[in-house]
């Protein structure tokens, strides 16, 4: 790991006041993430993994410590600069998909482009369609989000996350609401993105989903208790290919 880390967390803390008691959601977290990592963040609920994701995604600010992203101290950014950072450098994928209701898939994907002033208005649709094509959903571009299946919704969300060419993809339990067949498809997309150089950080509590990552960080009570390389990494695309040849596999038990 001679590489300069893209993300460097030093003594990162996040406290919540719950009445009179202070809850330490994160306690002195130290971590370095290099460009091109595919990290699975694991842990029981309440262990601090979601809090970490929110801070990494600049949706929340830490109570203490530093968060360096590409050599800049993110906690010093103004809310407007944080918004710009989320827009240009990050893509979000949520467990509940979080697409805008009663809005077409295309418009959902256009959304980050609308807030990106460097993209000319005329290119919005073209770029959004390209992103949708990448997740193999261009035929569904004009369907409303509620007319799509869960897996399709999540793919639209991935298209929305990558449309601004981010450097980091943050996924908070992306497969939590999906069946296992869909999970593999989503993981295949993630692994492809990761091969293209995008750093993927994914929260999950399913150990077999974590097997698609390259590195596994486990949290307990706001602290990192283990940080290890994934020994026998699964390849989602190979699994998909084998499933196609054998239709009676786990997709249709």
């Amino acid at each position, binding site marked *: 790991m001679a590489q300069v880390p893209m993300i460097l967390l030093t003594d990162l803390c996040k406290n919540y006041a719950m009445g009179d008691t202070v809850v330490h959601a994160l306690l002195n977290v130290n971590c370095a993430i290099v460009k091109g990592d595919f990290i699975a963040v694991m842990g029981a609920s309440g262990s601090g993994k979601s809090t970490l994701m929110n801070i990494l995604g600049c949706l*929340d600010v830490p109570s203490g410590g530093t968060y360096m992203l590409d050599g800049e101290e993110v906690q010093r950014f103004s809310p407007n600069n944080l*918004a*710009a950072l*989320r827009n240009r450098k990050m893509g979000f994928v949520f467990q509940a998909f979080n*697409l*805008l209701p009663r809005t077409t898939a295309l418009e959902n994907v256009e959304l980050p482009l*609308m807030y990106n002033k460097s993209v000319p*208005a005329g290119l919005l649709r073209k770029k959004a369609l390209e992103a949708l094509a990448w997740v193999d959903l261009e035929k569904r571009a004009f369907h409303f989000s509620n007319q799509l299946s869960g897996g399709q919704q999540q793919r639209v969300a991935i298209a929305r996350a990558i449309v601004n060419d981010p450097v980091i993809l943050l996924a908070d339990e992306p497969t939590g609401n999906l069946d296992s067949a869909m999970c593999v498809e989503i993981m295949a997309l993630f692994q492809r993105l990761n091969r293209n150089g995008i750093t993927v950080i994914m929260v999950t509590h399913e150990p077999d989903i974590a097997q698609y990552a390259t590195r596994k960080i486990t949290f307990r009570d706001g602290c990192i208790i283990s940080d290890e390389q994934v020994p026998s990494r699964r390849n989602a695309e190979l699994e998909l290919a084998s499933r196609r040849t054998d239709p009676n596999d786990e997709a249709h038990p």
Partner: protein
Amino acid sequence: MRFRSILKIAIRSLNRNKMRSFLTMLGMIIGVAAVIAMLAVGQGARDMINAQIAALGTNVLLVFPGAFTSGGVRMEAGSSSRLNEDDIATIKKSCPAVMYASPVARTTQQVKAGNQNWRTSINGAYSEYLDIRDWDMQEGVNYTDADERGANKVCVIGQTIVENLFGAGTNAVGQTIRIRNLPFKVVGVLSEKGQNAMGQDQDDIIIAPFSTVQKKLMGISYANSLVASATSETQIEEARQEINQALTDRRRGSSGDGTDFTIRTQTDIGNAAEQTSKTLSILLASIACVSLIVGGIGIMNIMLVSVTERTREIGIRMAVGARGNDVLLQFLVEALVMSFTGGIIGIAAGAGFSVLISKVQGWPVTVSVFSVLLGFSFSAAIGIFFGWYPARKAASLKPIDALRYE
């Protein structure tokens, strides 16, 4: 974020709740329509009053005796000084801007003709009185200077008198009426004039020679007031100053203070009436403004509901890079679209309503450009004012709180 897409999003989100948006807009529509209609009606009333005042003869000057107020002590009008025919002689001699001048002796008496009787005011004045007032004869003729000199018992009567003593449509010329048991011959009937700006019936009047009324009916040696007309409307101020000068000069010898009379012109009366109708318009407009504000509160209310409902959407937008200002603008534009659309419909409805009033009431109702601009800018101002708080509330949400909102 580009303005066109903001506008598109705003219109779409309003479309999603059509009924709600329409009801919210209805508040604005009623408010703006009320402003437009009230201003139009007020303006129409003002125009009508002005027209009536102009019909009174705007170059008329009235001289009343006695200061109405003197150092806080109010005297009985007419008690401090007595205007008389010598004043008229002086005015006629030394005031070139005055065309006609006449003393007026006024008394209210029971008038009888046959078995009918009627109480009305009798104005004693020179035969020029009709020229001063610019009143026309419908039938018969005016009395003459000879009647004046001889204090003859002749008179000219208005339409109301004809109706009450002889019956409508009767030719009263040549008939005799009795005032305090003195027989007066009716030589002329005035044409109908209707009510004046103050609501007085201008046809309920008897005009007789000054000397007759003064000596034979009232038994006084002075005049209750003087009336004069300027050579033209532009000469009114000139005439007022000349009369003031002449009367003051005349009084310096005999009475001490010299200014115990008041000159009023129709312009003064017109101004007073104008003031009254202006006050009325302001009153109407303020009532209309209240409904506008209520409409604005409706917008604010619905926008607050909308912000709460769409907290998650705000969170998603923020997560993909919307700044606080983008969110602020989005909700502000939404409020503005509602208030503007409401404003435009309101202007149309208000104009339509004004036309309806003018048709039904027969008033000259005028929808002015000013009131349209006012309605327009009011709806914009209300959109911004009442849209700001909910929009601010949406913009100041923390991304993580908005995203987690259930």
